[in-house]
């Protein structure tokens, strides 16, 4: 390994490609299915060049039929394969909802059949995609027992969580944030590694306020934390990384330490994951709380298209800063 290779920065998107490539080359059960993933390389070019390397059948272009794709992936998974399905956009996962919630999620519970399936779901806003290319649909599946959900915020986590998802014996929906694809990058370890499913990570250690978040909002929280540092407010940023099963221990430990909490997500507020986390904290950490639990989330509207509208929709660092100042006053 040359020095330049070791110091080469890898984008979040390249990290996803690397994970797929490495898992495919070391495990012949792993194969990819999706729309336009073959010669075209996928809508975001995650699988560019893959068909040349692995052939038409392991990088399988499918008809435009998400339910059929996921159903087929479930069947192949039950036969011992390790399919990785690409939803072109997470928004289109609604077409496959039934196969995911009724077939994939309930199989093992009902009759012990494993479904080692990964569904990659490019999600989130900030890319002017409008109401059908921007959603955060994770909560639909958060409410479904039998599914694992992950949502990395860094290139390191993107690679490690995808490898862990592929090696898992259960259906995993992998929410990859489109806004982060080419905006975050870092040097990755040369050796094989995974990020275990079910483990949150403290992305910034702080003592006064905990921000619980995931996906692109981790970066919003970090930006806010830097600004607040100038004001003498020391904020901790907890990146959930896995949404289901939730790492409640890490969340509770952080809140018990700081006594104040902001739950931040890009998904709309009502019925969002933030509500569940708030309930857990209210039930289990009530005595540790020095201030009301605060939630910052998108308003309860579809994701709008026009830049000022979308900008208004998405939570920002200044929202976190405002909330943190209020909390600091307690």
């Amino acid at each position: 390994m040359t020095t330049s290779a070791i110091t080469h920065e890898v984008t979040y998107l390249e990290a996803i490609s690397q994970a797929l490539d490495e898992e495919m080359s070391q495990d012949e059960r792993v194969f990819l299915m999706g729309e336009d993933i073959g010669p075209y390389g996928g809508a975001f070019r995650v699988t560019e060049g893959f068909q040349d390397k692995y052939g038409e059948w392991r990088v399988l272009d499918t008809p435009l039929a998400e339910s059929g794709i996921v159903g087929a992936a479930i069947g192949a998974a039950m036969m011992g394969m390790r399919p990785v399905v690409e939803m072109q956009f997470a928004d289109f996962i609604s077409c496959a909802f039934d196969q995911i919630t009724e077939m994939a999620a309930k199989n093992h519970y009902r009759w012990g059949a494993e479904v080692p399936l990964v569904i990659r779901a490019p999600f989130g806003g900030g890319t002017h995609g409008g109401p059908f290319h921007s959603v955060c649909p994770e909560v639909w599946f958060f409410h479904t027992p039998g599914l694992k959900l992950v949502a990395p915020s860094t290139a390191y986590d993107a690679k490690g969580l995808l490898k862990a998802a592929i090696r898992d014996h259960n259906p995993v929906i992998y929410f990859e944030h489109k806004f982060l694809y080419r905006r975050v990058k870092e040097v990755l370890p040369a050796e094989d590694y995974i990020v275990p499913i079910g483990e949150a990570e403290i992305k910034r250690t702080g003592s006064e306020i905990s921000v619980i978040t995931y996906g692109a909002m981790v970066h919003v929280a970090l930006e806010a934390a830097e600004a607040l540092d100038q004001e003498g407010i020391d904020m901790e940023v907890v990146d959930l990384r896995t949404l289901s099963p939730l790492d409640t221990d890490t969340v509770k430990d952080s809140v018990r330490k700081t006594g104040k909490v902001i739950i931040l997500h890009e998904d709309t507020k009502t019925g969002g994951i933030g509500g569940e986390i708030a309930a857990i904290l209210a039930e289990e950490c009530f005595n540790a709380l020095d201030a009301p639990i605060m939630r910052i989330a998108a308003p309860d509207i579809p994701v709008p298209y026009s830049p000022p509208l979308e900008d208004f929709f998405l939570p920002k660092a200044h929202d976190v800063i405002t909330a943190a100042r209020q909390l600091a006053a307690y």
Partner: protein
Amino acid sequence: MEISQSEFLHLYYFLKLTRALEERVTTLYRQGRIVGGVYTSHGMEAISVGYASALQADDIIAPFHRDMGAFLVRGITPGEVLAQYLGKRTGPTKGKDGNVHMGDLKRGIIAFVSHLADNLPVATGVALAFKLRGESRIVAANTGDGGTSRGDFHEALNFASVRRLPVVFFCNNNQYAYSTPLHLQMAIKDVVERAKAYAIPGEIVDGNDVASVYLTAHRAFQRARDGGGPTFIECKTMRMHGHSEHDSAKYVPRELLEEWKKKDPILKAERRLKELGYAGQPEFQEIHMRVEKEIETALAFAEQSPLPEGPEALEGVFAANPVEVLI
């Protein structure tokens, strides 16, 4: 291809076993001993017995709720079926699910979900796995006439045809989807017309003639095994009971049921067995007694089996270790 005596007697035995088992289930339901729904294949047994019997041991089935015969042919025992209906721990789902919602990969059975036609994309994926691995195994999948209205039916047939996957689709056309008659389900006369849109060869078979189903399935399976891709087989039949046993099916004209009663698959098989000189009344009686005895033994097993404990409901949401797959 002509059907041999031993093949036909195998089919006849499973027709009788399926009938006797489901009649017992219906009786148990009427006695209030089965708490959930009961969906039988009464009068339609020839379809599932026929197609499942034409498979090889390492093939896979993706059946639906009128396919009790296929479960039995693949090795699910009557005792397991009754345990499943009674919610016992010895049923294939250990009480987690009821009626015909059961599967076992070791016996090559994908469990059915209530959402009709969901099993068809899954079946294409099973076939895809075989194709990816270069195996000569195939998968047989079945749904009802109503199930062919679902998008999943069309997505499955289309994908299977585009990739020439080794899957054979059956349709149990029993003319009613719950209370909805065929003419309100689709504007076409024969369900098999749907296959044309996907360039899939289609066949219509008398679903009450077990030998016809068996031989037609056999040809289609061979074609799939040889790389010829999917076939669609419409099996014409009639649902002789309600959608489930709580449903008196008053919406079905009595004369239609009377007409189909004469075409009962067991009577039909007996006539044919006699014509071929394969069997007569003494053999039929012997098989009948054997089947009745099996059902008694099965019921005793199911009744003696323990119910699960309440907290067992929490087990098994996620898989921890690999399970054995029939590969």
